[in-house]
């Protein structure tokens, strides 16, 4: 249920469109900033969103990013249609990448994307179906939560 204290925003991402790459995460950053979220948290969310956005741009055909927010947490979910990730465990390791030479030449595909999302998120879930697509669930808490 969406109450008036919740925010929900959907952004479309086009695969292979490098000229507009990064615009969605800038939009997310501006939105969070405007809401007066702590700059350190804004930065973490912006980095996580950017890395995920770049993954969609680099590998997938298209994707959708949804920013949801309530006074407790920021949730960013991404669903893409693309090749999917064969081995998630491997993909989460720093330096592992399946990027093509072409992408590497542009300065991307260093295998730091997913680990970087993990580093900046409080919760990061990654699901993928080879040949279909990948879904990301990124949560950043706004208030400290009690960990049991």
């Amino acid at each position, binding site marked *: 249920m969406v109450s008036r204290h919740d925010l929900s925003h959907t952004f479309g991402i086009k695969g292979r469109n490098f000229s507009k790459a990064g615009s969605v995460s800038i939009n997310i950053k501006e939105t969070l900033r*405007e*809401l*007066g979220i702590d700059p350190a948290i804004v930065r973490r969310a912006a980095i996580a969103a950017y890395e995920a956005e770049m993954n969609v741009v680099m590998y997938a055909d298209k994707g959708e990013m949804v920013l949801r927010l309530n006074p407790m947490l920021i949730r960013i979910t991404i669903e893409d249609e693309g090749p999917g990730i064969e081995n998630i465990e491997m993909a989460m390791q720093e330096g592992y990448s399946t990027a093509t030479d072409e992408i590497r030449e542009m300065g991307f595909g260093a295998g730091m994307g997913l680990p970087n999302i993990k580093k900046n998120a409080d919760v990061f879930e990654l699901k993928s179906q080879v040949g279909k697509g990948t879904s990301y669930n990124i949560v950043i808490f706004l208030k400290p939560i009690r960990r049991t």
Partner: protein
Amino acid sequence: MSQYYHSVSVDEDNCDGRRKCLRVCPTQAIRIWGGKAVILEEKCIDCGECITACPNEAIVALTDPFGERSRFKYTVAIPSPALYAQFGRSILPDKILAGLKKIGFDDAYDLAITCGDTSLAVELFLKEYNGPKPLISNACPSVVSLIQVRYPQLVDHIIPIKLPKRLAAKEIKERKSKELGLKPNEIGTFYITPCPVKMIAIKQPSSEEECYLDGAISIADIYGPLLSVLESKDKGNYRKSLESICILGIGWAVSGGMHRTQKLKNVLDVSGIADIITTFDDIERGKLKNIDLVVPYTCPQGCVGGSLTVENRYISYNKILRMLETLEQENIEGCRGKRDIRERYRQKYFHRQQKYEPRPIQALDEDLGKAIEKRNKKEKIFESLPKVDCGICGAPTCLTFAEDVVKGNTRLSDCIFNVPSRFRELTGELSKLLDSFDSMDEDKEWKPGKERRRKKL
């Protein structure tokens, strides 16, 4: 009292609300309210774009008038190296400094020398630095404001080295008061400035360290008098004139000039506010970590492109570049001894005592729940707007207009596109109302007054 000192202000008598400034402001800090431009202090970074854009000269830089000197016993002009680029190629800095004395200053100090010292100090700082990268140069105060306002997370990247003009003013006051037996406050130090933003460093009351600069005079104001006393034909001591130029300092006037001679490898030079924003977005996302130093200037081509300069920015850029090339070819350095600077660096002569603090813009609401509510409302309003950014309402874009409405600074009916549709709505309602009257009229049963009578019975 306002929280921040700004060096740009609106002269209401001259402003006729033509909205040129509205469109060029890079931080959307201008509104036209009540037919006059209003600068939102919280958002303004004093870049001076609006000064250049205004056709009526209604946006003014709060520089000091040329006559300000009279309250001091002894005056020293400290020109920005950008001044050296305003005149023809044969006129070298020493002639311009001599010209400043001819038009009434008791002395003129070559700021390029202190800039050169500072270039070296920056190099030394880079060598021992191991914090987050890249570092960002603080040479352009508009850039510092932009970071404080829009990129609060990057304040730690700003290089904590003092600005040359401040160092120079202090040095001059100390030296001259000794030499002349005057009190420091009897000596007036005047910065000759290419842009309004440099005034902030002088006038900002909350500014950390004591400032020894007494005022700033715009290059545009001094250009006329100075031009009339310059001798362009005299070519006698060209070599000697060249030898007086500090190669490490003269480049501060242009983008790409500051560290050109030092051959620092990982320096990124950026100029123009749009490109700076793109670059800072990248830094904020954690890119550019392999870059050591970013040197941004909000004015295109650097300080030579400042809004208070006279010469075409590309021509003046070119003049500085030629000067640098000539000095490189002739192997002339003209700067102070490096050993002395290293020693002063070790004594923390160049280090800023205070850190740069963020100056984040006000959120939609202090309470996050309410802020989200307002944000949703803003989005809804924005969706209803034509999104052509016509500026007639007085806000630069439809998005800022929606924000202003939510913040309660303006009314939705100020949007001209809303007026016809609202008018149509109202006429629709009106005609419906009229129709209903007509149908009532057609209703034979009903007679005015009949009802009342019935009720009475």
